[in-house]
């Protein structure tokens, strides 16, 4: 199994710790990069400025509520950009409203996942994402 690069776009410190911790003890050799707002995420994905040498992620985990460009706007930008749209994007958010779910699928999110508030459940969901992704899903390779 080759290394998988994951980009986490999240401004909440608690959720950043939970997510990176959950991914640490996974069978998947992964490298998580964390950015805290939409503008930074775009610089990372487009390899601009301080992110000139950033890897192309095979998975983006995206929160909806972010300062500046919010998660949905960022999703829309990614999925309209020919060089970025093939990267699988997972919404990972507190919202479970039909409007948000529907809106994100409409904007071509790959999966929409509601973050459980409970710590154990949160870890379980991260592991389920990993298990499904690693064992069953094919994703575009690096250096597209």
């Amino acid at each position, binding site marked *: 199994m080759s290394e998988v690069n994951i980009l986490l776009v999240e401004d909440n410190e608690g959720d950043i710790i939970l997510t990176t911790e959950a991914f640490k003890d996974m069978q998947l050799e992964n490298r998580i990069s964390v950015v805290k707002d939409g503008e930074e995420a775009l610089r990372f994905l487009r390899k601009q400025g301080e992110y000139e040498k950033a890897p192309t992620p095979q998975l983006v985990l995206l929160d909806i509520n972010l300062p500046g460009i919010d998660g949905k706007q960022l999703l829309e930008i990614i999925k309209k950009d020919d060089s970025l749209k*093939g990267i699988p994007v997972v919404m990972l958010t507190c919202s479970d409203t039909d409007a948000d779910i529907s809106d994100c*699928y409409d904007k*071509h999110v*790959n999966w*929409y996942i509601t973050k459980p508030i409970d710590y154990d459940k949160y870890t379980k969901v991260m592991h*389920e994402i990993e298990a*499904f992704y690693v064992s*069953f899903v*094919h994703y*575009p390779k690096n250096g597209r």
Partner: protein
Amino acid sequence: MNEIQILLVEDNEGDIVLTLEALKEMKVKNTVTVVKDGVEAIEFLKNQIQAVDCTMPNLILLDINMPKLNGIEVLEFIKKDEKFRKIPVVMLTTSSSQADISACYDKYANCFITKPLDFGKFMDVVEAIESFWFTTAQLPKTTP
């Protein structure tokens, strides 16, 4: 979640039987509609949206190699039409070529899964799709 509607687009009889068997075992109550080529798949969706008791599929399982229109062409149709594009599409195919994988993600496939030839593994895959898509991930309401 109420009963789940699944559209299986597959021309191989053996794979149809296997998939239906695996879906029967599912905890989530589901109804599967099978169509055997791309043209039929598009006709089905167009008919459903116009029906008085319109029920759209909550998930589409889509093969690539099919007569008439292939799966990638069907995917493109679905994801370009605002009436259908929010329906999650899982590519379920014997192909594991990077060209197909990239083409499908570029055309907004929600995920790409290679069908194993082994029966037991095939059941594992369908089970994983069930547990991931119907438990971990949120599906959009697709019926207007």
